Structure formats: structure tokens, C-alpha cells
């Protein structure tokens, strides 16, 4: 967004441009929601094919890491929202600090997920394929679960990495934003919370449903 001109030439006012940007990102998020739709449907199909074995696979996941990660993302969304609140009052410093906290929490999620949890999964031989570690009648269903697991977490992680890039971009440009004009901060915040929402759905699908009775 070019802050030199009052607004781009196709808009009537700066407020008009802001509203348009916010509607645009919401529509994009609607599109993103449908992007994740097939993963959820795949979960329904895969679990329905053999619920017992699918749940047996699910119980091999690292619940404590999943739980920590959920807490990290909730805290991160909270931190970003506080940062957005600060720029609403014109405090760039407050915004930058809280966005940095949000960034660190997000980065911690990535580190735990791919640096620790995936490594443990690989070590336990849980990646589907001929070397898959679970044998016996639950083998196939558990492989199906882990095909879902690795795909879904990889894709969610990819979104989070993009989000980290965007948050960093906002922090580096912090001095451009004012109390009145900060729609990029708002737009990135919506995306950041959306990634959180996707995880809030994936978390029970991966860690909890298979453990519930």
C-alpha cells in the first residue's frame, strides 16, 4: 500500500480503500477455508473406512506436543490482537513488541512441530510406506491416518511459515503505520487468526478423536 497518495485512483476515499481491502481478505479466507475442506472430508472418508485402525494410528501421536502447540497458537493470536490494538492507538512500539511476541510464538510452533514432533514420528517409523512400524490388523488404517496426518500438518505448517513472513514484513515496516492508516496490519492479523482456526479444527481431528470414547 502506497502511503504517499491519499488512496489509489479507483477509490473514492481512504476509508473506501480500507473497507475494500478488509472485504478482500475475508473473501480470500473464505476461499482458504474451502482449500482445507478436502482435508476434512478426507478425514471423514479415511476414518469411516476403518475407525478402529484409524484411531489406533491416532493414539500414536504426541498429545503433549499437540497440546502445547495449540496453546502457543492461541497465545500468538492473542499477542497479535494486542499489537493491532496498540497501533489503533498510534503506538508503533507497542505494536512491534507484541507482533514480535506473536511471531516468536508462531516460530515456536513450527520448531516443535517439525523440529521435534515430526522427528519423533519418523524415528518411531510412522511415515506410511513399506517400513511403517505398526503391524497387525490396524496397519492399513493407521497408515491411512498418518497419510492424513503428515499431509495436513505439512500444509498447515506451510501456511504458518507464510504467515511468519507476513508478520515479519509488518514489523519491519512498522514506522509506516498510524492510528488511522494500518489496514495491512489488520489484513495480516486476519490471516494469522485464520491459521489458528484451522489448527483448532486439526487438533481434535489428529489428537483427540482417536483417544475419546
Amino acid at each position: 500500500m502506497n502511503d504517499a497518495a491519499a488512496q489509489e485512483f479507483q477509490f473514492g476515499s481512504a476509508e473506501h480503500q480500507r473497507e475494500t481491502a478488509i472485504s478482500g481478505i475475508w473473501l480470500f479466507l473464505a476461499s482458504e477455508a474451502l482449500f482445507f475442506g478436502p482435508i476434512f472430508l478426507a478425514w471423514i472418508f479415511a476414518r469411516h473406512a476403518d475407525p478402529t485402525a484409524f484411531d489406533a494410528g491416532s493414539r500414536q501421536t504426541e498429545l503433549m506436543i499437540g497440546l502445547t502447540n495449540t496453546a502457543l497458537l492461541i497465545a500468538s493470536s492473542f499477542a497479535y490482537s494486542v499489537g493491532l490494538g496498540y497501533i489503533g492507538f498510534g503506538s508503533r512500539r507497542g505494536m512491534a513488541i507484541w507482533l514480535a511476541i506473536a511471531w516468536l510464538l508462531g516460530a515456536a510452533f513450527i520448531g516443535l512441530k517439525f523440529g521435534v514432533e515430526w522427528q519423533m514420528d519418523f524415528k518411531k517409523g510412522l511415515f506410511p510406506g513399506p517400513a511403517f512400524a505398526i503391524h497387525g490388523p490396524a496397519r492399513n488404517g493407521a497408515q491411512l491416518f498418518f497419510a492424513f496426518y503428515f499431509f495436513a500438518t505439512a500444509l498447515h505448517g506451510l501456511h504458518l511459515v507464510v504467515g511468519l513472513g507476513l508478520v515479519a514484513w509488518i514489523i519491519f515496516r512498522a514506522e509506516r503505520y498510524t492510528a488511522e492508516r494500518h489496514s495491512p496490519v489488520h489484513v495480516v492479523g486476519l490471516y494469522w487468526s485464520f491459521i489458528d482456526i484451522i489448527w483448532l479444527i486439526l487438533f481434535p481431528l489428529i489428537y483427540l478423536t482417536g483417544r475419546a470414547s
Partner: protein
Amino acid sequence: MNGYAPSVTVEGREIDFLILALTLVSCAVLALVFALILLYMVRYRAESGVTRGAPGRKTWRFEISWTAATLAVFFVLFIWGGNLYVRLFQPPADALQIYVVGKQWMWKVEHQGGQREINALHIPINRPIQLVMTSEDVIHDFSVPAFRIKHDVLPGRYQSLWFQVETPGTFELFCTQLCGVGHYSMTGEVVAMSQPEFETWLAGGAAPGEREDMATAGKALFAARGCSGCHGEGGVGGSSATTGVSAPALAGLFGRLVRLQTGATVTADERFIRDCILTPDKAPIAGYPRIMPSFSGQISEEDVLRLIAYIKSLRSGSRT
């Protein structure tokens, strides 16, 4: 063979009748559309001096009427097509079962008596035939235009198709689901013959002594694969007293309702028995421990079919 193959099944003729009705409805609508367009093109061409009158403002009456009329016609067509469809895929109980395995790029057929054929299917007329079909690799589709019927054949699942042919003859068989380079060559013929001729055909080829029927072949597998170790000789079932483990009786199982550990009941059909062999944990049976190993990947589709044929052949005396 000339181009037009008249339908040789009762259901096929009903489908033809439905298609005819659809054609008539379509032609009537198209005639109306084209007649109006042509009429207006001539009558209301810019040069024409015909008086036009004031443009009509109230359009909703027209809109409601043609919407309602369209809906009514559609609903009749839906009921008609749906009713027939449900019958098309509900085979009668007394159908003669023949097993079909599709693979790139051939159809393998096996009769109950163990007669096998490739890219051909011999059937008797005036008797319902049910095909139990599966695929070894990709999705195929078993289609016989003269019967007006087709169904996809999927790997890992059983699909069923049934028909009753009234006229003897040779009919084209196509694979109609793209299955790779040889798709176009995955064709064959269905030969319908009278019952006596069919008996003769079944008896031809290898002498009865050399050919095992499917159930006999299945019986050998039942022993060789260790099934009888738990389920007992002849599939009578096992308990800690007899085989050392508690295993359900298989004799008389086919077609019965089975209670699952989830509380649901299912009919023990081919699909169910297949699942029990390949993915035993999927639908554990009430009252038995989950100890059955999976045979997934260790047994060919054709052998699974033979085991099923054997289990079907076991008529039990004790109806437990």
C-alpha cells in the same frame, strides 16, 4: 453385427422406453424453442411493419408458470429414472453368480464350477445373472450396451451387476472407464445361450476331474492358509476346547445377519467376508476376540473369491 443392438433384457427395454420419453419431451421443448425463435425472427425483424403493442411489464405470471411446469415434468422424470435405477442394482436372490476380475487390460471371468475365461462371458438366457466384480489395479467399467447396463469396477471393493437376457446371441462388452493405454482394447463378448447349451459349454474344456470348482479350490486354500487352524475343519467354528481359540463358525454364515461389536448388524455378503479376510479389524464381530490377522496384500483377488465361494458352499446343520 450392425450398428443398432436392440435391448435383450426387460430392464433394458424399460430404459429404452425412458430414453424415448426423454427424447419426446426434449423434442417437444426444442420444437417450441426453435419455432418461437424462427417465428419471432421473421415476424419481429426490424424491417417488419407488424404492430408490436406496448411492451409487457408483468412478467411474473409467465415466469411462475414455466418454472412450475418445468419442475413438474422434472419430478416425474426423477421418480421414473430413480425407481428403475434402484431395481437395476438390486439383484434377485436366486441369481446365478459369476465372478469377474478386471485388470489392465483384460477381463478375467470365473464360474462357480471353476471354468475360467478371458474377455468373454458365457451365460444362460432366461435366468438372472449376477456378476461380482473387482479390479486388480485401476478402475475399470463393465459395460454391455445391448443390456443397457454398466458399472465401474474398483480395486479393493466388490461391485455387483445383474441382468437377465431373453434372447440368445453374442453381445459386445466394453470397458468404459479410462484405464490406461490399452483401454480401447479391453473389450470382449458376452455369449448368451439356452440353458442346455450353457450346460454343454460348462462341461466342455478340461475334464471335470482336472478342473477344480471354485469352492473346492477355496477349500484347499482354507487349509493351506491356516484358516482351519482357528475356524476349524469345514469352518465349524472354534473354541478353547477345540481349536484353542474362540473363532466364529463359517458354515451357514453367508447371507445371515451378523452382530458387530459396535452393536450394528450387517448381512454377511461377499463384501463383508472379503473385509473380514483382508481387514478383520474394520468390523469386529460381537463375542469374539480381535485376533484374526489381516491377509491384506498376501492373497490375490481371485483367491479371495475362491475362499468366498468355499464359505458360501458350507451349509451348516447347526443354525447358531
